[in-house]
């Protein structure tokens, strides 16, 4: 059992002669490039916000832009996505506005999840982005279930389930892939093997030579791809989704990529990995790779590159300052959405809290959470 070489269309060195896969014309490629850039800017700004003490947590996507944007670009609007906390790029590519994304980081009154969850837990029913749980791998059997529902109901829709290399060790991974195999769910399992689960390298996560090989335990195909190659990501995911929608059953895709930044703002990766390793992956940067390709094909020029970067900065800055200006949700929202309708107990607790606030016993929350709070 030796590790298979990942599929690749665009090598780090260039690959100007490669034709883009079906579905990616120059215009579309340019828009994906733009989103990758916006994503990286958003990521940097969010990390800075945390360092400046303006938000209390962030988990960055840098290095994984091609995997996120490429896979999300392959989705049709009716497809359901189950992201993890790292999939800012999936939210962006599915059409969530930067403003809505920033609202979530602040947990403000306009946040779609009502300030109920930590930063990075975006969700938008409108965009078919299911609520994220911080628990690793719990979404995997859920995504199998949604794919089962799509199959049972004969829908022309599929489900994509995101997770990391670490998640493959959880019992829920096994449960989800096994159910999907048995019921031929319309689910595509998209693993971003970014080499690390916080401080644990993937080689300590499993003795298997790849993540993709694990599909053989469930009776369907596993494909290993270069996750920093937008073209191969898009093509592979698109084909797997089409197969799923047409009743061909699930696919496991292992996208080899790298978490360039820390696991989260609570982490310092210099404690457990070498600068050399990081450098190796820096040379495989997904954005630069795509940019080189677009340049080589003559689909982008230096001026455009600069404009895209400048626009991205401006958009992200505006989104953040707008989000930061919004205050926290109202206290009574604490008791909403526990059930469809509040129970008598919750009604009483709501009255109790409002009364305590009115009497000045409990002080009103006036800020969104900041670092160290």
């Amino acid at each position: 059992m030796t590790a298979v070489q990942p599929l690749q269309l665009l090598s780090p060195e260039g690959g100007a002669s490669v034709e883009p896969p079906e579905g990616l014309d120059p215009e579309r490629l340019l828009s994906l490039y733009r989103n990758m850039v916006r994503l990286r800017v958003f990521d940097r700004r969010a990390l800075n916000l945390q360092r400046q003490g303006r938000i209390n947590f962030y988990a960055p996507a840098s290095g994984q832009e091609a995997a996120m944007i490429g896979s999300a670009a392959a989705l049709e609007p009716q497809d359901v996505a189950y992201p993890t906390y790292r999939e800012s790029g999936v939210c962006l590519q599915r059409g969530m506005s930067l403003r809505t994304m920033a609202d979530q980081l602040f947990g403000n009154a306009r946040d779609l999840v009502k300030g109920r969850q930590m930063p990075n837990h975006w969700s938008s029913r409108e965009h078919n982005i299911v609520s994220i749980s911080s628990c690793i791998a719990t979404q995997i059997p859920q995504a199998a279930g949604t794919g089962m529902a799509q199959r049972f109901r004969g829908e022309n829709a599929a489900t994509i389930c995101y997770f990391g290399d670490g998640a493959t060790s959880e019992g829920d991974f096994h449960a989800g892939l096994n159910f999907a195999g048995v019921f031929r769910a319309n689910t595509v399992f998209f693993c971003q093997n970014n080499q690390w689960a916080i401080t644990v390298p993937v080689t300590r996560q499993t003795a298997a030579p790849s993540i993709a090989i694990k599909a053989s335990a469930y009776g369907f195909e596993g494909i290993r791809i270069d996750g920093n190659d937008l073209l191969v990501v898009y093509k592979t995911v698109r084909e797997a989704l089409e197969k799923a929608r047409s009743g061909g059953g699930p696919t496991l895709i292992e996208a080899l990529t790298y978490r360039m930044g820390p696991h989260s703002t609570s982490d310092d990766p210099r404690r457990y990995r070498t600068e050399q390793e990081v450098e190796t992956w820096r040379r495989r940067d997904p954005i630069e790779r795509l940019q080189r390709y677009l340049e080589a094909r003559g689909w982008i020029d230096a001026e455009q590159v600069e404009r895209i970067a400048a626009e991205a900065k401006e958009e992200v800055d505006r989104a953040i300052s707008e989000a930061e200006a919004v205050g926290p949700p109202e206290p009574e929202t604490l008791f909403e959405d526990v059930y469809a309708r509040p129970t008598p107990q919750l009604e009483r607790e709501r009255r109790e809290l409002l009364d305590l606030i009115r009497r000045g016993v409990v002080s009103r929350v006036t800020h969104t959470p900041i670092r160290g709070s």
Partner: protein
Amino acid sequence: MPVMNYIQALNSALNNAMEEDERVVVFGEDVGRMGGVFRVTDGLQKRFGEKRCFDTPLCEQGIVGSAIGMAIGGLRPVAEIQFMDYILPAYDQIANELATLRYRSGGQYAAPVVVRTPCCGGIHGGHYHSQSTEAIFTSVPGIHVVMPSDPYDAKGLLISAIRSEDPVLFLEPKKLYRSAKAEVPESPYEVPIGKAKRLREGEHVTVIAWGVMVKVCEKAVDAVAEKGIRCDLIDLRTLTPLDEEAVLSSVEKTGRVVIVHEARRNTGYGAELAALIAERALLSLEAPIRRVTGFDVHCPFTLDPYFLPDPPRVALAIEETARF
């Protein structure tokens, strides 16, 4: 009206629910082809097809996890866990995922899933076929917990549960499956979630129970009645949300309380009831709040009859409380 046992009543409810709403799907281990090891889902696969009633792989975290996903995908899943003892591998999916979905998504998503499971003991099943761990679920907001004690309530509550917009943990005392019988309408009807039922009326002692213990308490209450002690016997039926009004108004009347459950005493649901009463009706109390419960051991096999409260033990506690 036909007389049905508990199993037949549940089966009738499932038939009704699957007829009236084609989104309803029923699944679990041995649920499809065989109709369940207790035959609660008997005939459903034949009648509604393999996409509406099916067997799953042997994996509780997969059953509940996929049920959540099916609900998100627009279905109305009714999942069976073969024994409540085996629900624990799914505890994370229930407590961290199912019960939180509406809240953590800011109300954008919800998973109206019913998780049915045979619970409780008294059948010489040992620790792994006897548990009633309802208290680890009542501590979780976002999911309703019900445990009907008779076929009529079982059918009505199951219909309510399947129609509910919220997840429901539906607990079925397996000891009652064949032994409990009642007149049950063939057509669908609801028994509301969150409402207790008074089975006996009396001014001396309030006796609170649910599940099999309701039957045990009926016997005990009738036995002490012969000695002139008259009890309110309350069958909670729903544990979350609790019918506080039913509990408190009875205690205010009687001033004396005996709480009876199968689960072990330590942090059983009886503790919550006692705490509620000690907080909201303390001044009415004329005697200590008694709990009659399983002992704080793992339910044994041979000595099972010692473990569970039986009518004499409950009757003694009622008498002592009445005479206090």
